[in-house]
């Protein structure tokens, strides 16, 4: 069947199976396969030209230590389920990406980061161990000091099938976030504000990536702290983890192409920025609205129409960030392609063997998929290379092997390791083939 990632591009012909047991999994290892969680990687990371292993039946929570907040669970468990189960007991994930519809295994394979990477690090730093099925079908428990652990976190499923993991949760007093919004008239001010807010637990800047000239990179900076019990309105004191009722919307079908163009996108971006001007007072927001605003629209990827969309995400070192971001935003703004979302975050120390995060600033921009955006992204690639940045594979659908290699000296040893362990014979995705990993 034909299958894609969240961006609905590229569509890849694959043999999709849903194994129930480790033995079922083992039966597919010879076919050349890749594990797939909930399909939230944007491009072709979790779909194979051979066999795609849907991990949905590996979704059991195995053990929870209520003293330490350590959860042992199978790789197919959804982050949403972890939150729904343990938040009422006062626990929250230490690291969360921008959607709760991801699996534990997917979070590890992409070594996801959140709005707190600068303070708390990435997914791999919340794990006590992971169980991985190797190319020969054996299962190995890896601890953080094991070299294969470092390659597996961020390794996009290429080292083996992630079966189980132990993840450390953090204590919270409530399910609410105290959110402050600052507005910055241009990129330079936005960067200063982000830097000044370094001590904030969560920080993220939303950038109007279509504004030009003096307003290039105007931004809303959103800072967040876990709200203390005392900060809640007294009506919430009895149940500080309750979720305000939230209507779920479903995007029923792919939107017609005509709805998304540079004019609608420009209008949306401008309206969003203006709306943010009035929200400068601190507000209490529940965890779902704060961390997962887009999850309220099920199937929001269809907004970009049948041809799908692409996300460009890179990280630039602090030293080159300002110039690099100026160049990236200028190229984007001048191209005038409809882009709704551009997000800028701070990143802290590097961890793992091939993980995306490194100290600096990470920028993510969505584009509808068309000839123009594909060409623009080639130009953005060159700007990233010129500023010593690197690319996020969980978002990638079109990078070239050459560009990836040029962006990161760790790529060659990673590919070498996959070869030495014969993992490359058994585990491959459409992405790993394209990137020659």
């Amino acid at each position, binding site marked *: 069947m034909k299958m894609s990632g969240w961006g609905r591009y590229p569509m890849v012909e694959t043999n999709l199976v849903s194994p129930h047991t480790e033995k079922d999994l083992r039966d597919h290892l010879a076919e050349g396969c890749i594990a797939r969680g909930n399909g939230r990687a944007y491009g072709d990371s979790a779909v194979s030209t051979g066999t795609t292993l849907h991990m949905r039946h590996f979704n059991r929570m195995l053990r*929870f230590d209520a003293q330490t907040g350590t959860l042992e669970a199978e790789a197919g468990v959804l982050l949403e389920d972890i939150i729904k*189960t343990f938040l009422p007991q006062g626990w929250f994930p230490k690291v969360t990406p921008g959607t709760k519809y991801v699996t534990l295994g997917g979070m590890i394979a992409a070594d996801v980061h959140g709005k707190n990477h600068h303070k708390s690090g990435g997914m791999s730093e919340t794990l006590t161990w992971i169980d991985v099925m190797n190319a020969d079908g054996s299962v190995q428990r890896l601890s953080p000091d094991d070299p294969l652990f470092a390659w597996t976190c961020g390794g996009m499923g290429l080292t083996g099938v992630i079966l189980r993991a132990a993840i450390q949760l953090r204590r919270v007093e409530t399910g609410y976030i105290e959110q402050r919004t600052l507005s910055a008239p241009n990129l330079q001010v936005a960067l200063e504000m982000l830097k000044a807010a370094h001590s904030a637990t969560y920080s993220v800047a939303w950038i109007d990536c279509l504004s030009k000239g003096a307003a290039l990179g105007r931004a809303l900076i959103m800072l967040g702290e876990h709200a203390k019990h005392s900060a809640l309105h007294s009506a919430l004191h009895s149940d500080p983890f309750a979720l305000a009722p939230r209507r779920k919307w479903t995007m029923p079908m792919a939107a017609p192409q005509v709805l998304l163009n540079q004019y609608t996108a420009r209008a949306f971006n401008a309206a969003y920025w203006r709306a943010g001007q009035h929200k400068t007072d601190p507000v209490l927001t529940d965890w779902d609205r704060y961390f997962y605003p887009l999850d309220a629209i099920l199937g929001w990827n269809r907004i970009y129409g049948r041809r799908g969309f692409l996300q460009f995400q890179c990280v630039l070192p602090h030293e080159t960030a300002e110039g690099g971001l100026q160049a990236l935003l200028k190229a984007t703004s001048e191209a005038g392609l409809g882009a709704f979302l551009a997000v800028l975050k701070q990143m802290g120390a590097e961890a793992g063997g091939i993980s995306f995060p490194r100290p600096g600033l990470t920028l993510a921009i969505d584009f509808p998929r068309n000839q123009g955006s594909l060409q623009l992204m080639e130009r953005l690639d060159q700007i990233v290379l010129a500023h010593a940045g690197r690319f996020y594979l969980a978002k990638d659908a079109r990078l070239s092997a050459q560009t990836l290699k040029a962006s990161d000296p760790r790529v060659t040893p990673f590919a070498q390791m996959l070869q030495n362990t014969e993992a490359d014979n058994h585990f491959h995705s459409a992405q790993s083939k394209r990137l020659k990993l």
Partner: protein
Amino acid sequence: MSVGVVLILGAGSDIGRACAHFFAAKGHTIQLAARAPDRLTADQTDLQLRYGVSVSLHAVDALETDTHADFVQALPVLPDVAISVIGLLGTHTKNLKDTASAVQILRSNFEGPATLLGALATQFEARGSGTLVGVSSVAGNRGRASNYIYGAAKAGFTAYLSGLRHRLFPSGVHVVTVLPGFVDTAMTQGMNLPPRLTAQPGQVAEAIYYAIVKKRNIIYFKPIWRVIMAIIWALPEEVFKRTRL
């Protein structure tokens, strides 16, 4: 439905697991019964962690029919709801050649679940309350060349459930017959099923829950299967035997 104890027979199956999750999420105590319950310890822990309900494991072999009465007696408490999702599809071409497999299909889909629910029915009747749910199949509505051994067994089970409902009505015990069409489970893995006609196990579990609450007698899932089967049923035999369904 008031919160009570739900017994799932064939708890290792995908629909069984989905039922366990759905009812546990509603706060019910869960009894998981399967031939090899030690394989369900991870599911037991998972359900307890997620929903904070108590979950017990019980061994039962659908084909060991003379043990069924004792199995029911040995349950820690007589459940309020018992759901049988026991079933075996096998490979039709193999069933045609091999008598032993054919007999196994007939017994696993009819004899086993029927005697198990029969043993529970006696206790429910004596108590004067409870709901029995049998997951049969639309395959039982008309025997077709492609799977009539499985279909015949399901037809027997459907008739058994109908009789059970008739018998137990005066005593206040309700019986639900569930007739799923295609369901995306291990049983149908590798088959090329039309997505619009194919249900997810979780949807079947939800349909079962509301069938119990609303005291429905016979439910088709997906509902479109009621229409499809009505058409197939309406074909005169002279026409039907010439079709390739």
